[in-house]
């Protein structure tokens, strides 16, 4: 074999060897120490951060994400051997910061990570609410008001006429008007509900997405039941039939059902109390309010006294429904008396209670001072009674207008519950399954609980579990934490503060046995 050929062989051999090595393990620098330490709470603002690595590195990206979520890049640093010292900005706010680093080690392979530290104390969760535009909110309020008016004066009125006192055809017109108003308001409230849910502008009112969103919400059921009840009431009003009384009763009970299937109050726990309470409150309200308009019209008739008598017999029971159920709901929703004046929900309730007190006062005056006189047929008393009833109707309209505001004011109970709501994610792969919940599912200090199962829903006895949370969009490299196994078999990480909202990537590193590891990865949405 001659020399050039031998050298060619050597060359070829080395080239093959280098190809074989390509893609093989490259050097990764490992972070060995940081100041401040990951997860540390420091009393005073650090002047410098330092990152020590297992081998020499040079920084690619260094950024600091502050408690308000703003990110700034750190450009002033000094490299000494394997330590990277970074000059800290002078104006660091109190709260949790993320020092996100990405470095390249000798072989050109980049590695990254994040160090979490808090100045003073960990960031508290900020209070941010998303609101749709005012026009949508107004449309929603108007839709709700029209809808309530239809239920109260329309259905209530039709039921009163069917059960208590029939009225001449001319008197049906105003009641029919309220029923039509209710029927028109249902789609308006429905569309507005969808727009509000998706935070879309008013111009998107006719888009299918808004209607689908509304149909998917619990208000979809309310709209359906209420729409049917309003239609039935309209039929009862104009098409006399033998089953008129039964249909009217169905429509009346429909008002209760419609309101009991959605809304803050119905959604509250205990459901066995709140849903029936809302039902009674609604039918009580429709029974009382609905009686007023026919009553005022009946008092102009010669036999008006009879209608008044019948109304007076029924009213105490309805009032009992309203007051008992109202009190129960208020206790569940408001939780603390001071919330009546300190929360928007409480203020709406306070306003409503003041109007209700005025309404009951007028009702009592009617009952104890005027009824006897009116029944005996004195015309001027009757006209005074009619005027007071008109005032009562006005007050009820005002009450309903106020109640429609509740749509925009979550009760103190719901505020607390929403804040504590966890963000959950489920990962299912062939090898393993994980249920991850971040509690609360918002920025600030969180606890992450993970329950592990194998791919066939059997128990997965992991030796160790590590979590890495990153947010690539915000430039946050993985924050790593070792999970601790709890007595119930779940794994938990509790020394973690998530500084900003958005889509976080959670990666699980499950050590199944000494020599076996499984990785799972998913994203989870963290609320502001």
């Amino acid at each position, binding site marked *: 074999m001659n*020399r*050039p050929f031998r*050298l*060619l062989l*050597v*060359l070829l051999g*080395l*080239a093959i*060897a*280098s190809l*074989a*090595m390509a*893609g*093989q*393990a*490259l*050097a*990764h*620098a*490992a*972070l*060995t120490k940081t100041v401040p330490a990951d997860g540390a709470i420091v009393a005073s603002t650090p002047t410098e951060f330092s990152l020590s690595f*297992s*081998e020499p590195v040079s920084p690619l990206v260094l950024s600091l994400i502050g408690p308000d979520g703003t990110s700034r890049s750190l450009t002033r640093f000094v490299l000494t051997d394997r330590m990277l010292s970074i000059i800290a900005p002078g104006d660091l706010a109190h709260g949790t910061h993320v020092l996100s680093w990405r470095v390249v*080690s*000798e*072989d050109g*392979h980049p590695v990254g990570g994040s160090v979490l530290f808090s100045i003073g104390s960990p960031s508290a969760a900020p209070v941010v609410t998303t609101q749709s535009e005012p026009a949508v909110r107004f449309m929603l309020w108007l839709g709700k008001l029209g809808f309530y008016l239809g239920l109260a004066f329309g259905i209530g009125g039709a039921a009163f006429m069917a059960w208590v006192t029939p009225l001449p055809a001319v008197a049906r017109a105003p009641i029919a008007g309220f029923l039509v108003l209710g029927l028109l308001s249902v789609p308006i409230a429905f569309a507005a509900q969808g727009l509000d849910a998706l935070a879309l502008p008013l111009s998107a009112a006719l888009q299918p997405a808004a209607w689908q969103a509304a149909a998917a919400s619990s208000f979809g059921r309310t709209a359906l039941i209420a729409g049917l009840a309003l239609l039935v009431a309209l039929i009862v009003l104009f098409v006399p039939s033998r089953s008129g009384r039964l249909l009217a009763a169905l429509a009346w009970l429909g008002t209760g059902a419609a309101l009991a299937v959605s809304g803050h109050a119905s959604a509250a726990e205990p459901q066995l109390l709140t849903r029936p309470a809302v039902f009674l409150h609604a039918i009580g309200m429709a029974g009382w309010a609905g009686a007023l308009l026919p009553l005022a019209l009946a008092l102009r008739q010669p036999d008006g006294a009879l209608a008044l008598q019948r109304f007076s017999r029924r009213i105490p029971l309805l009032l009992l429904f309203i007051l008992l159920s109202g009190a129960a709901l208020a206790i569940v929703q408001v939780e603390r008396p001071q919330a009546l004046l300190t929360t928007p929900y409480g203020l709406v309730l306070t306003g409503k209670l003041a109007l209700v007190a005025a309404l009951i006062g007028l009702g009592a005056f009617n009952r104890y001072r005027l009824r006897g006189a009116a029944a005996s047929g004195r015309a001027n008393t009757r006209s005074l009674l009619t005027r007071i009833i008109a005032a009562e109707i006005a007050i009820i309209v005002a009450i309903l207008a106020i109640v429609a505001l509740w749509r925009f004011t979550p009760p103190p109970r719901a505020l607390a519950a929403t804040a504590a709501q966890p963000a959950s994610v489920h990962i299912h792969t062939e090898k393993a399954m994980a249920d991850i919940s971040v509690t609360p599912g918002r920025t600030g200090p969180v606890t992450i609980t993970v329950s592990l199962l194998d791919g066939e829903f059997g128990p997965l006895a992991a030796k160790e579990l590590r979590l890495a949370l990153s947010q690539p969009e915000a430039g946050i490299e993985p924050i790593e934490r070792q999970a601790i196994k709890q007595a119930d078999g779940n794994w938990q990480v509790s020394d973690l503060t998530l500084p900003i909202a958005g889509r976080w990537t959670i990666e699980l590193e499950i*050590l199944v046995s*000494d*020599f*076996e*590891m499984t*990785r799972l990865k998913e994203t989870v949405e963290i609320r502001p």
Partner: protein
Amino acid sequence: MPAPFPQGFLTMKSLSLAALVAAFTTAPALAHVTLETQQAPVGSTYKAVLRVPHGCKGAATTKVRVRIPEGVIAVKPMPKPGWTLETTKGKYEKAYDYYGTPTAEGVTEVSWSGGKLLDEHYDEFVLRAYLTADLKPETTLYVPVVQECEGGAVERWIEIPAAGKAADDYKFPAPGLKLLPKK
């Protein structure tokens, strides 16, 4: 007699290329636990030299454990002065042919412990084994290694790349060996 020009030219070029290749091939030894010989034919005896380039985040290595993959039999680890050599024996998933002898059990784990390999030092751990013909050529055989260090630190070189991923995509890839067709 002086060498003719083309020969000298080739020598220069091959040397510089060799230097370049050498520069690339030495880099991997820096950070991961790797095998010295990274390809071998199935149905042959293979000498595995595990290269341990550093401790666990600075701590000295005190124990090296190797999980013997299925299909690798007749394992004979090399004793190492200053280290206690231990093996764990167990049953294989099936009986493998070892030069005509069906072999259904043998060493499944090897460990060297009790030594002290400082982070700034380098060492190698050696075993000899037979790569059975049941192993599939043109695939990579991964040999999971657990490195235990002073102060309870552990580095687990046990990650096996999923389909379509390279060892480089992982933080703690298991040392790999490309299997070649039987000679």
